[in-house]
């Protein structure tokens, strides 16, 4: 443990399910303030990493600490609130009963009404969970995660099932909690979400960390520029050009991610005199992500989650 005390430490954490490797010696340390996004496609190991840091799963190898303790330790868990990806709340209890029950687990929780307000559930207090929409149920779980005034919120895919308005509202609440000094770890495959919220983005795939930087840093690290153009050249030829990281097709356009746009362009223009519709842009996080995970993207506008992952 360093003097400050990291909120979460995973050291060479490994986890497999049968023959499937979920985490392959993952190293991750989260200090405890600000928002850290764990970004990766489905099956990348995000939920397993979350399960380990919350003490829900035990690593096959390596070490996991939560506030310097075993994550199963009650004293560690009292400093954490969490949202899991696939939990259904008891249909018979009202929103207020549910939030009050979880508030009672903590030594100095928020007032129940305050937690309900922060989660955008005002007016639904006396509704039983049975009568809530999927998005409303997710918001109740968000209320449960924050009601204990935790030092760290761990949110596994918090905005799945939320409409745009509810998603924005949740982001605003996350920012308010962070401004109040809480740390947040969230997993997402919404790149927009990571860009909008995170101070730090950890990209993982196949159980390993591929990148760990600020959103800008993650972009800079990979495809710094994206070239879009119409060209008759086959993908294989494009891929062989200098500094090209990845090649994709979007309709009639080729989408080329490159580390050095000038060098790639020189080669490109030399090879195809009929090249047309040329644009060069800074890479979006989507493109950075595609490049990092090495996927053969069909279209950079398609969210990585919708790609099939080998």
């Amino acid at each position, binding site marked *: 443990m360093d003097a400050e005390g990291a909120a979460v430490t995973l050291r060479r954490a490994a986890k497999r399910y049968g023959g499937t490797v979920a985490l392959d010696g993952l190293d991750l340390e989260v200090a405890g303030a600000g928002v850290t996004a764990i970004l990766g496609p489905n099956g990348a190991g995000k939920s397993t990493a979350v399960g380990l840091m919350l003490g*829900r799963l035990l690593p096959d190898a390596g070490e996991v600490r939560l506030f310097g303790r075993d994550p199963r330790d009650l004293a560690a868990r009292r400093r954490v609130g969490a949202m*899991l990806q696939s939990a259904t709340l008891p249909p018979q209890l009202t929103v207020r009963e549910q939030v009050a029950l979880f508030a*009672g687990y903590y030594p100095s929780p928020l007032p129940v009404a305050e937690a309900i307000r922060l989660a955008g559930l005002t007016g639904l207090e006396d509704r039983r969970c049975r009568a809530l929409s999927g998005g409303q149920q997710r918001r109740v779980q968000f209320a449960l995660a924050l009601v*204990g005034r935790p030092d760290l919120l761990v949110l596994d895919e918090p905005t799945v099932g939320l409409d745009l308005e509810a998603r924005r509202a949740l982001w605003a609440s996350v920012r308010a909690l962070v401004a109040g000094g809480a740390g947040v770890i969230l997993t997402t495959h919404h790149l927009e979400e990571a860009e909008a919220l995170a101070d730090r983005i950890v990209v993982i795939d196949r159980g390993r960390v591929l990148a760990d930087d600020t959103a800008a840093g993650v972009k800079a690290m990979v495809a710094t520029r994206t070239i879009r153009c119409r060209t008759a050249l086959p993908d294989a030829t494009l891929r062989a050009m200098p500094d090209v990281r990845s090649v994709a097709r979007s309709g009639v356009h080729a989408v080329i991610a490159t580390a050095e746009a000038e060098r790639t362009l020189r080669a490109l223009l030399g090879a195809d005199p009929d090249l047309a519709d040329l644009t060069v842009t800074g890479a979006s996080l989507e493109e950075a992500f595609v490049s990092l995970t090495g996927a053969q993207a069909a279209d950079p506008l398609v969210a990585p989650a919708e790609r099939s992952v080998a």
Partner: protein
Amino acid sequence: MTAATLAIAARESRAELLKALRTPEYVVPTLVFPPAFYALFGLALARDASASLYLMATYGVFAALGPALFGFATGVAFEREQGLLALKRVFPMPAWAYPAAKLATALSMTFVLLLVLYALAVFAGGVRLAPGAWALMLAVHLGSVFPFALMGIVLGYSLKGQGAVAIANVLFFLLSIVGGLWIPLHVMPAWMGQAAVLLPSYHLAELALTVAGYERGPATPTHLGVVALWCVLMAGVFAIVQRRAAM
């Protein structure tokens, strides 16, 4: 176990009781069947106070069966399947508070049922017992919750929701009918009496009947021993299925 964790368990129990009372498919077999069946077989169709006493002893075990078996088997199976158990485990709830709350719910529902049953027996059936016998009767009946709860929690950890409902229903009728809780075994086919000795419900009913003054067959230590054996067996199976479910 501090005051704070006890308070958590108390709130957990209250929530558990609310959940139970707001679930009709749990309330009907657990809260309606025992007094209704007793009123029919133990009072309306009984010839005298002796029959009412006999069936009060066996229906008291039946009163413990529903809340314990359904509360644990279907409750745990559904909440495990829905990820609620996993969610609770990542929150700072002491792990024992979850089964403790279910146990408290089963015990308090059984207690209320027993009060109704005893009142029916005394006021409508003319049943009379010495105060010490009443206390022992209550102890046997409330104690019946434990072996049934263990059986329920094993089902809850081994099966998914709908599977647990199906098996719990089969066990509910098997333990009731073959165990002699509804109709005295001596008016049933002989094979049923032979099969009954394998079931904890039979031995619990025999213990209650002994308290009521119907001592026959094997002695009290045998009944206690079989019930204890069942509990140890179920606890052992539980340790295995829980470890497997956690992985």
